[in-house]
């Protein structure tokens, strides 16, 4: 279980997160919604150890992970698929996937994970010798997801997995995310696609201006007047 307690993150003088608390139970699919600049990516980066925190704690499976380096966080099984995919552009699809299984545990299961990921994304299997930069946007997103899965994550953090995708591709990606969760992967999903995100997530948080302003089961978020007005345009 991931537990974030009263987390404060600042970029110099600018406060990005003002005491954010959230939990992701093991096996859950939790959504984090909010507009641009609300602090969603900052939160994921803080959990990953990419940026320092000022106050508050982050704990994983009961032990404190605040202040760990990104590689140490990854070895604990917390894997982030960053926004904008951030693939290793000059590496092939296969090499990108292998990089996902870099730490010792997943590396021991690399053949098995590779088979599973290629079954999940047959398109990647067709393109395994191509460089990542030569893939289409949707394929790149599949690769980003696949690479994260190669680490056999205990917690998978997805940052805007549908960014820049055609609606039909986006829908397919959300479907896959739902399937992954049903197959047992714990997921923290950050997205601006409020409707699709909340339709596959059980619980959700609304992050506004660095603060959690609403939390609860997805249906409750969807029914909320503010969410309806600001994010769904209803």
């Amino acid at each position, binding site marked *: 279980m991931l537990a974030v307690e009263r987390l404060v993150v600042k970029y110099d003088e600018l406060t990005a997160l003002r005491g954010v608390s959230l939990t992701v139970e093991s096996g859950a699919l939790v959504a984090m919604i909010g507009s641009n600049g609300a602090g969603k990516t900052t939160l994921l980066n803080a959990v*990953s150890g*990419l940026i320092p925190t000022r106050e508050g704690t982050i704990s994983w499976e009961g032990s404190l992970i605040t202040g760990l*380096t*990104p*590689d140490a*966080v*990854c*070895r604990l099984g917390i*894997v*982030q698929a*960053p926004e904008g995919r*951030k693939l*290793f*552009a*000059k*590496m092939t699809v296969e*090499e990108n996937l*292998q*990089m*996902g299984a*870099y*730490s010792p545990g997943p*590396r021991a299961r690399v053949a098995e994970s590779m088979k599973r990921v290629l079954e999940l994304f047959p398109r990647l299997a067709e393109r395994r010798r191509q460089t990542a930069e030569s893939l289409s946007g949707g394929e790149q997103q599949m690769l980003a997801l696949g*690479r994260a899965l190669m*680490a056999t994550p205990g917690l998978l953090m997805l940052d805007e997995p549908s960014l820049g995708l055609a609606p039909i591709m986006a829908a397919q990606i959300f479907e896959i995310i739902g399937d992954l969760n049903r197959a047992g992967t714990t997921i923290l999903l950050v997205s601006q696609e409020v409707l699709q995100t909340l339709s596959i997530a059980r619980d959700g948080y609304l992050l506004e201006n660095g603060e959690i302003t609403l939390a609860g089961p997805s249906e409750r978020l969807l029914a909320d007047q503010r969410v309806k007005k600001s994010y769904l345009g209803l």
Partner: protein
Amino acid sequence: MASVCPTKTAKKVVGIALLSAILLVFPWLGPPVYFISFLYTVFMFVCMASAWNLIGGYAGYLSFGHAAFFGTGAYAAAMLTKAVGPGTASNLLCSIPSGLVAAVIALVVGYPCLKLRGPYFAVITLCFAFVVQLSVQNLGVLGGPDGLWIKGMDLPVETGRSILYESMLLLMAITILVVERIEHSKFGAGLRAIKQDEEVAQTMAVNAPRLKMGAFALSAFFPGVAGGLHASYLTYIHPTIVFDVNMSILIVLMALFGGGASWLGPVVGAVLLSFINELLSTFVKAELARIIYGSLFIVVIIFMPNGIMEFIRKRKQTGSPH
């Protein structure tokens, strides 16, 4: 297809074995010393460009200060042979701890410097090499501006040169072997990932600081050993010779000329550039030779930005039906 592959590798093995055998026996066939000396320098540069490629080619941290490690090795060897007493065996063996000295210095310097990226890292390594050179030039213990004499190996010139030739050949072979092994290891994969995107690599559990330090230290070790051997070859070392900034730049150019993506690139780059340079300075007037040499770089950089080997590989890919 399957039947072609084994004969291809077999051919490769036979080719490499044949080449090694020729290079090994070459100095003992009584060629002019000039050829021995020339090949010796080629080996030296192949060794340095290959080692440099670990940090510069794979990890993408362009060090413009590798002459500092070469010079450190030379000075360390000079001091060590003085301490243990000169002799053929001790002169040769002292080059190994000299390489370790260079590697330790790389760790000390690398710790702060490897936090910088791109042009900042390039500039700071360049400055570091100048600082080392100036320090040595002003340290009385190390001979200061007078340089240092190294007791020779008490052998006839040809024999001495031949022995150093064989040692440098061995060092080159070991360097290439180590670099090739690293390229295909998890270590190498981590370095390549760092080159592409260091943050993302770290979120894939790549311990970037440690990998960079390791690659930097190793890339300093081999030039350090080469410098140690070269001290015995020169018998007199001076800061302006062994810390020459041109050498730092030449190492980078050789590696990038051949292509930094694989171990073969720096080997090809160092061999080609050494030969071209030698031929030009032998057969063409000096000023014209420099102009041709310079233009060659411009042409390669414009038409083959990823080096010759990458250019050939791409050509092969698009040329073949599949």
